[in-house]
């Protein structure tokens, strides 16, 4: 087992990278789902939410098939760019990101749906192109939903277990995040104290994240009230 601080640090890194990498695609997908009517919308909706309802082990297995060293995408990435997901922390971040993605999209989509379209119309009559409407009106007004989505996504990524262990195994210092660390400690005789300390770290991180988002949301609400 790696040192406890190493585990905490790795978990923060994996969850942060996963959440950050999800942010822009999640905003794009959420905007499309909230504001556009198109053929195949329901299918896209099902695809986005699949990781939320699939057993995480199945998600991990599919990731292994696609992004493993002999996977369709994984083999190409390895040959073309020399980049590997398997048994690396980047793979843990991918697994965490994929499972967190639906939750992030849901929250941002709700945030965008709550933005009164009247404001978007105003910006258009003032000469704003659709992209500017999105950047200056829709996203700023949907910010509480975006922040909430990122916090929920971060929490989900921090707690990811099944997909991670299936896809990139449980390698100390590389893919052993908090959840996997606690699991490993509990398997060991006398590991209870370590498990408890890691659990406390999890609680502390979650509480800080929740408080931070609550404070941000409150200051936004005060301004827009």
């Amino acid at each position, binding site marked *: 087992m790696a040192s406890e601080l190493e585990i905490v640090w790795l978990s923060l890194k994996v969850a942060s990278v996963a959440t950050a990498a999800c942010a822009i695609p999640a905003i794009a997908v959420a905007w499309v789902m909230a504001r556009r009517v198109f053929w195949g919308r329901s299918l896209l909706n099902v695809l986005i939410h699949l990781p939320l309802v699939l057993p995480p082990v199945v998600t991990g297995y599919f990731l292994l098939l696609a992004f493993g060293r002999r996977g369709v995408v994984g083999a190409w990435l390895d040959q073309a760019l020399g980049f590997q997901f398997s048994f690396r922390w980047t793979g843990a971040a991918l697994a965490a990101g994929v499972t967190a993605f639906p939750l992030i999209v849901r929250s941002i989509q709700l945030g965008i749906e709550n933005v009164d379209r009247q404001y978007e119309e*105003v910006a*258009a*009559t003032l*000469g*704003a*192109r659709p992209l500017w*409407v999105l950047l200056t009106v829709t996203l700023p007004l949907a910010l509480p939903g975006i922040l909430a989505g990122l916090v929920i996504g971060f929490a989900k990524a921090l707690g990811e277990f099944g997909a991670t262990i299936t896809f990139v195994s449980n390698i100390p210092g590389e893919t052993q995040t908090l959840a996997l660390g606690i699991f490993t400690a509990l398997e060991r005789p006398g590991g209870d104290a370590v498990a408890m300390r890691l659990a406390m770290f999890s609680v502390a991180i979650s509480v800080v994240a929740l408080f931070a988002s609550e404070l941000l949301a409150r200051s936004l609400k005060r*301004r827009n009230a």
Partner: protein
Amino acid sequence: MSVNVNVRHAVGRLRLEVDIRVGNGLTALVGPSGSGKTTLLNVIAGLVRPEHAVIRIGDEVLADTAAGIWVPAHRRRIGYVFQEPRLLPHLTVRQNLVLGRWFHRNRTGGPSLDDVSRLLNLDELQHRYPSRLSGGEKQRVALGRALLAHPQLLLLDEPLAAVDQRHRSEILPFLDRLRRDHSLPAIYVTHTLNEVSGRADHVVELGDASASVSADAYFSRSST
């Protein structure tokens, strides 16, 4: 500059058939609620796409649905003051005012922020957020915001509807000044002619509520 609007549109029970020509100055578009006045303004602004429309400002064709021409709202240069002020709640008064300018940084001419602030008495509101303004103040900011975007046509949709009686008298004089200082064609939608009596250069009446609406009547009244 003259504005030509020929629109045919049906949504639900509303059937809108309008053919009007509007010159410089304030044109009052009067009709009972439900007669499609707001819909007509939305069509002119480019926010609603009707079955049929030919819209021209001067020589510029903004819409000719038969020819497949439909200039999107953001390229029409039409200022729109909605019934509710619709100030962006996350921006200060000043940021709301200069928004149109900011979207069109290369557009020159038109009134300056100082001009508009003076005209509408907005100097002291600049750094406030919309949530800290009264109804009358909000509507003045909305009017200023539309003017600062340097439009070639101004649309006003019952701008006094959301303003209480006490504050109406705060806005009407500004409309008079606006007519005097800016030779800009403006369409003012209202359900009572009283609101604009003595202020409109032209009056166009939209007919009965549920029935088919046509306003090809175009008559002029000398302003007092």
